[in-house]
Structures are given as C-alpha cells and as structure tokens.
C-alpha cells in the first residue's frame, strides 16, 4: 500500500469520528443562522471529499506499475534523509507517555532523569557510566532551570 492510500484511509477514519462528534454538539437558543455545528459540518464534508481523492489517487498510482507509488513529497518537510519506521517512532512516544505516568509518583527531577536515561538507551547510547551521569546531570540541570531560575514549578510526586 502506498502513502497516499494510507493517508487517505486514516483521514477518512478520522473524518468519520469527527462527523459523529458533530452530532453531539448541542443546539442553543442563542445560535445564529449558521450555528455551532455549521463549520464542523462543512469541514467534515470537505475532508471526506479530499480524503477520497487522495485515496483514489493512491489506488491509481498502485495500479500504474507501482513506479510512481508514494505520490509526491513523501520526504518530510524538513528534508531529513533518515526516516524512522512507525514502530521505532512510536517507541519514543511511549517513553513520553511513560514519563507522564511516572511523574506524579517520582516527581520532576527523578522523572526527567529517568526520561533522559531511557531515551539515551533507546537511541543506542553505549551502556556505560555516561548514561547515569547524563541522566543525573540532566535531572539537576532541568530542575534548576525551571524551578529555580525560571520560577515555573514542575510537578512534584510522592517521592520528590
């Protein structure tokens, strides 16, 4: 499957969910002629049309010998040559989710140190003293920067 088909199908699924949600918007006596549902409805219809065009274009590209499959501009906007596969990229995201979950327990300095150590390991840093050193340094540095220097408190947990 090429990127256009994947992109088009994802957009269609998202659009269906969005359209369903527009039905939950209450109608008010204060509404104008267009109403609170007006723009969301128009947008849902527009996106459905655009997603269908993208999907059909992708299917046609697949049929046309596959040479032009992928459509134009499959490289990111910032032009990076390397493109991590979805699983690898999701792994990084999951580490972020883990950080949010452990933060209320371990508190900010320890949480951020754990985040740094985990990402460094995940990204392939050599398993030596540098990882704990970078994590501890980062924990102290970020805590000092936010809590002391900038005065914007980061979340505290049960431990710290």
């Amino acid at each position, binding site marked *: 499957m090429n990127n256009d088909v994947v992109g088009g199908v994802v957009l269609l699924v998202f659009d269906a969910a969005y359209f369903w949600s527009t039905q939950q918007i209450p109608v008010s006596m204060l*509404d104008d002629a267009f109403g609170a549902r007006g723009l969301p409805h128009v947008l849902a219809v527009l996106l459905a049309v655009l997603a269908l065009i993208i999907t059909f274009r992708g299917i046609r590209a697949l049929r046309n010998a596959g040479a032009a499959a992928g459509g134009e501009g499959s490289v990111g906007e*910032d032009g990076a040559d390397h493109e991590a596969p979805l699983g690898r990229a999701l792994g990084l995201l999951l580490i972020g989710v883990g950080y949010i979950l452990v933060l209320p327990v371990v508190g900010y300095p320890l949480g951020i140190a754990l985040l740094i150590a985990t990402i460094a*390991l995940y990204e392939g840093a050599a398993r030596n003293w540098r990882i704990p050193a970078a994590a501890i340094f980062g924990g102290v540095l970020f805590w000092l920067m936010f809590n002391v220097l900038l005065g914007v408190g980061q979340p505290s947990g049960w431990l710290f």
Partner: protein
Amino acid sequence: MIDLSTIWTLSTTTWMIPAALIGLVWGILGGALPGISASITMALLLPFTYTMEPVVAIVMLASVYIGAEYGGSIPAILIRTPGTNSAAATVIDGYEMKRQGKAGEALGISLWSGFLGSLFGLLMLVTMTEPLSWLALSFKPTSYFGLGVLGLSVIASMSSGSLVKGLAAAVVGLMIATVGADPIAGINRFTFGVPELLGGIEPVLVMVGVFALSELMVQSGAPELSTLKEKIRVRLPSWETMKSLKRSQAIGSIMGLFEGLTPGGGGSIAAFLSYNEARRWSKRPELFGKGSPEGVAAPETANNTVASTTLIPLLSFGIPSSNSTAVLLGGFLIHGLLPGPRLFEHNADVINGLYFGSLVAIVGQLVFGILLLPACVWLVNRPRPFLSAYIMALILSGVYTLDHSLFQVGFVLAMGLLGYLMRRCGFPFLPLILGVVLGHMVESSYRRSLVLSGGDHTIFLQDPIAVGLLLASLCFIAFSLWRDLRDARKSRAAGQLEETHS
C-alpha cells in the same frame, strides 16, 4: 512609522536587548545542530516566552530565526551536513573550501554575507511593511473572513506536496481549531468532558508537537554524524574578498527578497536559486562546486535575507509564509496579539521593538558568530542519543510550563504522532498550522458578518476588500489545480513514452 522614543523606552525599560542576544545565541546553537531546523529551534523556545512581556518574547523569537540561519551554515561547511534546510546549498562550496584548508574563510564569508543579507532584509521589512498598515482602517468582519480564506488557500496551494494534500491539512487544522467554545453562542464543541479542552487548543501545542517532536520521532535511530577534530577559527573576509563578493551578495539579496514574499517559498529555495544565478553571472563560474567563495556568499546572503523579508506577509496580513514565521505567529498569539492590519494600529510598540531587536540581533551576529564557534563544534560532536534525550526533556518540560497541565504534555505527544504521519505521507505542515491559527478568525468573522446582515450572504459582496480577497483565493486554487493537472498529464505522457521505448 518608526518611533525612536518608543524604541528608547523599550530598550531602557524592558529586557528587549538581552532577549535579542539570548535568542540569537539560542538560534546559532540550535541551527548548528543538524536536523534541528530554524522552526524547531524556535518551537523549542516558544513555551518559555509565555511569561515574558510581548515585545520581549517576539524579539527573542525573531532573533532565534536570524541566528539559526547563520548557525545552519556551520556544520554545512565543517562536516558537509547542513544544520538547517536553507544551508543545503552552502554545503557545495563551503565544504570544498574546508577540504582546501579554508574552513575559517568559508565561515567568515558565511557570517559576513549573512550579516549583509539580514541588514538588507530588515531594511525591506521596515520600508515595505509600513505602507500596508493603512489598510487597517478599512477592514471589516467580512474583510477578515476574506483574509483568512485567502491565507488558507494560498498556503495550501503553494506549500510542498499536492494541492489536495495541502487543502486536507488545512481542513484538519480548522477542525482542531473548532475544539472548545464556539465564538458566537459559547457552546462547547468536541470537549468530551475534558476541562482542559474548554478553552480550545493552544496553537503552540500543535506547533511544538508537529515541528519539534515529530522531528525527533523521524530521526529516531539515525546513525551518528561525522565528528570534527581540528580547531577552526572564523576569519572575516579581507577588503579585496568583500569587493569580489558584491555581485553574488546582491543576487542573494534580491532572491531572498522575492522568496521571502512568496507564500511557501523560504530560505532553501532562495539559497539554491541564488547559487545558480550567482554561478550564471559570475566572472569565474568554473570555480563553482570547487570551493568558490561566491558559492558560499550567494546562498548565505539569500537565506539570511529571507529571515527578515518573510516577516513582511506575516506582519502585514497575518499570513505566515514559512514554518518559522508560523512559529513566530504562535509567539504573537500566546500574548493575545494577532499580526495583520490592526497590529500597527493597536500594538505599534511591538512592531518598533521587533525592528530594533532584529537590528540588535543582526549586529550581535557578527560578534557571537565568531565567539560561539567552539560551542557549536562541541555541540555538533555530542552523541546523538544524548542530544535526542535532552531535546525531548526540554520539549516535555517546556510544554508543562504553559498551563501546568500534564494533559497538555500528552496532547503534544499526540501532535507529535500526527506530525510523524504527515511527514511519512507527504502532507505539508504549514496549512495545518495556519488552519489552527486562523480557524477562530475565519469562523468568528464569517458568523459575525451573518449576524450583522441578518443571515444575508450578499454582505460579503458589498465589501470590495472581501470580494477582492475571495476572488484572489479562487484564482490561487484554480491555478494550483491547473498546475497539478498539467504535471500529472506530463508524468503520464513521460511514462507512456518510456513504455514505448522499452
């Protein structure tokens, strides 16, 4: 009009000058990191500007942009890897000069050309933006609706990728903007009982997730870059060299001006165009690609000019024409400022501060560009896993400071996934960001106009500005559609020709 007394007051009573220099330093360091573009460097700083005075925040972000354009040339020259996209053209002759033992000279030419390009860009910004401010008094709700539609259609049709994908990205952006209370009756939409969504979604969250976090995701597992061992010092060009670079710098300035004004243009296109033109007009074109100083001067002048001229459509019409100006727009919005005609009327101090702060950053670039080289080299030599870890920590910590909400941190992660998928499927970012930013204005001005007319749509035809803007939008979409169809027909014909030959 430039108001010197306002500039003096701002300089003496606010942190504007230190902010310009801090932003510049941040920009040079961020730009020097390959993979971290100017827009990402700005997005990383965006949450920190939340508590600053508006003028200080805007000056700091604009200075980051100026610094990042020079910073990008450092790894381009030293390790053949552009720090930012717009420094890609600098690699060609910059790295050749380094191989010939002239790295210091190449960096000096880049710095000097960047300085001249930025100064020229600032001059254009001041002279071209001011006359447009008179439009402020003529704008009605219908005109603002037309302006919003024009902005979306221009960016969707001119961004990288196809028209359809650009439009789809813009629609998704508008959908994100519909979350929260609707602008007329205050009815909650798409909040799903989550209190954090009642006030809508801050564009800054979308920007940080889509620009910065998605870049980390895309770069995950990337191999290490080559490291730099030798010690290098920036050498500013001699008077003779400066004279020999005049032509290429003039070409870079002109290309930078036009590309800055073009929606969807930007530093990288300007840099490559000016490189080609400089070679065409050069007295020694055979040296291009073999370490020509002109080959460094032209693209560096161009991309630094763009850093200022790209602010012209942003300040005049509120339309960001590049990713970096979209992030700068986020900075304006954080402080309740909407660039466009009314900004000149109501917030002239911010405009004056921006002009002066940019000048401070441009002059400071000559000093800090030399002083920061060892720091940039040290940063470029750091192992990628640790850089990624620290950048992720900075993103997640910075976002929390916006509203002290872990929900928002989670939302940024979701936006990171959206950005990653968009990159993989070839959807441009700028229309999405513009949809998020302009969504509220488009809907509220449309509905306000209808309330004023009692539901009569002909009110849009009674405002000549709105009619002009809407017609221009139609023209842009029609032109892009024609261009897409022509390209598709050409590639089909080329495919058939190949089949016949084989």
